[in-house]
Structures are given as structure tokens and as C-alpha cells.
């Protein structure tokens, strides 16, 4: 059982684009105990639709544990018997941290479309404030998958002294044109929903559920591989769609699944947040401000673990290999493996014996040696 906690920051926070929040709040969870020397703290960075709720359950009625319960917990790869794990909802999120759904200062109106555009390096700075708030002065590891991996890498570059180990799973040094195109389709779906109301739907008691659902369906498709989908759905039809009179519409399992994913997401996730998060992905460029990726990563002092997933076509193995080669070029310690799986981009969230064993063994080098 885990209880979310709230950290309130009263100093102004300035985003990369110059916008400022006078004060802000981060919601976070922790698992395990921080040791006296403070040498066992691990930061988990969440991906596009993730939240602070990475592991465990909030109450006994909760059916699904946190999004990375597979990896975080006692005896699991990120072993909370040894490590103190911190997981926060990113600034601009919609799960309790200050974001488009929270009220603007001195008013009851939600930020809506007025919320500043965060970038990966802004999240890193805000996570650093949280670390200091928690009395942590160095992470034994910063860990994330996909957009979370980008934050982990940015941490290693921006605050090298803070990051002893860096784990980036199914990640990339920046988006490809195809990645940006898919994000644009998702945003277009949201922005063109009449209920979006220019982003002020909350103030006008509307909900762009269709737009968000469609955005999620497109996004979700890119998280799966063609082979994985064939294995899971094939051309199966939903049972109730077999009607003797032949009048009922026939629904393929894959359609039903995507609709379900879209619907569930549209009631859970905020449209403005989705727009901001996908934009943050588009804008991410680890080599920004440096002549190339290798020069950027040459600043890092962390020990790296990079994992890609063979059937991932969103952030294909080649993208991890780019990071690996840049690290290798500058002589940084790095372990890299390409996990052979049909799980696609979602591979870092799903069970796989090789993946779990490898992560678990590598994590043994994180934290104080017993």
C-alpha cells in the first residue's frame, strides 16, 4: 500500500521558454527507505501518459497497481528492500502536480491552454527541486523508459554530479520526423474536437473525449508491433458481434481493444496535458546547445544502461544505438542490449524473462554495496 505525497514549492519556477510559475506543487510517491548516508535514492521518470503512481496500490480496491509495478518493489529489479525510489508526476501533468487542470494563481479558473510549455530539461530541474526537498543530494540512479528515458539522459548531461547511474529504456536522443508526425496527428485529433474549446473546456464544462480517445488510439498503435498485434488479436471477432440474423456489425477484437483504450484514456487523461507532453517530446533534443550528441554526453559521469526492444518501431533500437555509440565515442561506461520481443515500444512495461533478469542483474551495481 502506498500513499501519494505532495511537495509545495514557493520559489518561482522559470521554464526554458521564459514563462514563470510563482509557486507550484508536485505530487509524488516513494517506495523503500532512504538510508542514513542518502546513497540509495533512485528517481523514476515517467513517460507520456504515466504518473507518480509507479508501483504498489493505493488501496485494496485498486485493481491495477502502478504502471511499473513489474520492476519496482521488494525483490524486484528496482529492489525497494535496498533502494529508496522516488516517482513524481511531472510538472504540467494531470495527476496532481501543477498543470493545465489546476487553478491559476488567485483564481478558480484552471490553467487550461495557458499553462506554460514544459520541456524535458524543465522537468529535470523541477525533479532536482524535489530531490533537495527530500534531502537527497545525489541519485544512485535515474531511470526511465521512452520519454522517461529522455529525462534520465538529460539528468546525466545537465547535472552530472547528481547521477551515478543512468538507465534509459526504449528511448531516443530526439524524435524522428515520423515520431513528430504521429504526435501531430494526435494533437490534431484533440484540437479539432469541437469540445476542446480552444483548450478552455474545463472552464466551459466540456470534455474533448473523442479527440483524446482518437489521439490515444493512434498513440497506442505505435506502442505495439505488427507481430505482437497479430499474435494477440489476429482477425478474431468479438463474441457478441456474431449475430445469427447477420444484422449486427462485426467488430474485430483489435478494434474493440483500441476503442476501449481510447475511451478509458479519454476520461483519465487531460487533453491539454496530452498536447503539452507530446510537444515536449517533439522539442526534446539531447544534443541541443552542443555540436553533437557525443559532446553533450561527454559531460556525463554516470554509468549507463541502455535497452532497446527489437520490435519497437516508435523508438527503434537504432535510436538507442545512437546514444550508445555517442557514449562509446567519449569512453563512457555503458551496457547495451536489444531485447528480442514482439512487445514493441511497450516492451519496457511488459513482462519478459530476459529483460527482467538483465535489468535486475545490472541494478545490483546501483546503491551501496551490501
Amino acid at each position, binding site marked *: 500500500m502506498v500513499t501519494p505525497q505532495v511537495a509545495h514549492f514557493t520559489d518561482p519556477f522559470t521554464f526554458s521558454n521564459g514563462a514563470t510559475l510563482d509557486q507550484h506543487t508536485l505530487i509524488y510517491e516513494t517506495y523503500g527507505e532512504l538510508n542514513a548516508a542518502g546513497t540509495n535514492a533512485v528517481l523514476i521518470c515517467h513517460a507520456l501518459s504515466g504518473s507518480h503512481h509507479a508501483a504498489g496500490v493505493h488501496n485494496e480496491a485498486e485493481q491495477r497497481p502502478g504502471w511499473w509495478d513489474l520492476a519496482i518493489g521488494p525483490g524486484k529489479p528496482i529492489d525497494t528492500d535496498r533502494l529508496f525510489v522516488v516517482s513524481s508526476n511531472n510538472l504540467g501533468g494531470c495527476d496532481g502536480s501543477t498543470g493545465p487542470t489546476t487553478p491559476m494563481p488567485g483564481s478558480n479558473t484552471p490553467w487550461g491552454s495557458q499553462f506554460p510549455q514544459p520541456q524535458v530539461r524543465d522537468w529535470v530541474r523541477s525533479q532536482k527541486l524535489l530531490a533537495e526537498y527530500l534531502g537527497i543530494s545525489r541519485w544512485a540512479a535515474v531511470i526511465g523508459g521512452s520519454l522517461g528515458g529522455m529525462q534520465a539522459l538529460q539528468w546525466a548531461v545537465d547535472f552530472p554530479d547528481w547521477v551515478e547511474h543512468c538507465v534509459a529504456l526504449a528511448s531516443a536522443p530526439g524524435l524522428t520526423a515520423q515520431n513528430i508526425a504521429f504526435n501531430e496527428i494526435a494533437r490534431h485529433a484533440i484540437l479539432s474536437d469541437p469540445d476542446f474549446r480552444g483548450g478552455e473546456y474545463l472552464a466551459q464544462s466540456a470534455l474533448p473525449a473523442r479527440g483524446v480517445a482518437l489521439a490515444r488510439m493512434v498513440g497506442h498503435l505505435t506502442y505495439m508491433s505488427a507481430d505482437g498485434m497479430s499474435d494477440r488479436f489476429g482477425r478474431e471477432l468479438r463474441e457478441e458481434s456474431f449475430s445469427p440474423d447477420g444484422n449486427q456489425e462485426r467488430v474485430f477484437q483489435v478494434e474493440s481493444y483500441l476503442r476501449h483504450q481510447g475511451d478509458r484514456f479519454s476520461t483519465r487523461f487531460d487533453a491539454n496535458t496530452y498536447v503539452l507532453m507530446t510537444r515536449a517530446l517533439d522539442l526534446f533534443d539531447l544534443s541541443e546547445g552542443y555540436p553533437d550528441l557525443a559532446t553533450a554526453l561527454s559531460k556525463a559521469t554516470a*554509468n549507463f544502461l541502455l535497452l532497446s526492444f527489437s520490435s519497437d518501431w516508435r523508438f527503434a533500437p537504432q535510436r538507442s544505438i545512437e546514444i550508445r555509440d555517442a557514449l*562509446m*565515442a567519449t*569512453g563512457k*561506461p*555503458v551496457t*547495451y542490449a536489444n531485447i528480442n520481443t514482439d512487445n514493441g515500444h511497450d516492451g519496457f512495461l511488459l513482462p519478459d524473462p530476459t529483460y527482467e533478469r*538483465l535489468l535486475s542483474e*545490472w541494478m*545490483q551495481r546501483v546503491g551501496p554495496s551490501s
Partner: protein
Amino acid sequence: MNRLDLNRVLDWVPQGSSVLDLGCGDGAFLQRLCSERGVTGVGVEIDADNLICAVQKGLDVIQEDINDGLQCFPAQRFDLVILTHALQELTHPHIALRRMVQIGKEAIVSFPNFGHWFCRMHLGFKGRMPMSRVMPRNWYDTPNIHFCTVRDFEALCSELDIDIIERATVAGPAQSWLGKLWPNLFATSAVYRICQSGQ
């Protein structure tokens, strides 16, 4: 299998050097180099189970197919690149060798000598591909697709402008002096220290 070639390789590894171990397997030898020679090591391994074993030993390992050309390593990145008993398993041994002496200031290569008298006798009298304790697999399902002899290897080095700095041979206990005298006939394995010509 008692890998005598590895002892020889170990003797040649300078204290504190940076080493790339190609086909590092479960990392046992690289770990030995780290503890006995204080090297900074990186392993390359294609098999996931082996890779996990090497990671378990605290080593940094890259999952990569040596046959893909080892493009991830810049020139002169390592003091030493090691390839022990894997040359014969590569699709293009000559390309790998050329790359090894680029990535490393020096390279060490060991391989089983197919010119050994046993192989010759086996082929000569039985008329079939040799099989032994060291080469237990049938010709059609062996990973060893590019066997060579000591003389073959030296000829290839000269073709590739690779200098042989030092050569050692591994032979049975009764034949160690013969192995030194006539390596192509009596060495079971050969170990070479090589580098790019003119270095």
C-alpha cells in the same frame, strides 16, 4: 576445456590497459583481466544469456554481432582488442581483423590451428572433417565456419598489412617444443599479438 591460450593472452595484457573483449561469453575471462591485470574492460557478446552472466559479474557489455562490423567503436579507442577462439566463427574474419587493429592500438587473436597433425591425419586417412574433444561438432552444425592454419593466418596478416608483434603456440605437453619449432604442424592453438603496419 582447458583453454591454455587464455593464459598466454593474460600474460600479454599490460597492467591497467583498456581492453575490448570480442565475444566475451559469460565474461569470466574479462573479469579475470579486470582482477589480475586491473584493466578497464568492455565486452561484446551476441547471446543474451551470456550477456546477463557478464553483467552479473559487474562488467560493461555491448550486445552486438561482431559480423556487423563493430562500427560503434571509434578508431584507437582501446589499448587492446582481444578475440579468443572466435575468429573461426566469424562470417568475414578478414574484415573483423582489419577493424580490430583500427579500434585497438594492438590486438590479440587466438584460434585453433587446423594445420595440426591430428587434423591432417584425420582428413588424410579417414577422409572426413576432423572431430575431436576440442572440435566436437559435425561439419554441418558447427559454429566454426572459417578454420585456418597458422600459415594461413600469417599470410592473411601480411595481405592486410597487419604486423605480427609476437606469436605463441599452445601444444600438448609432450609436443610443446615441437609446437614452437613447427607450429603449423604441432600447435593446437596459436596466439598472436598484432597491430596495424607502421604503428
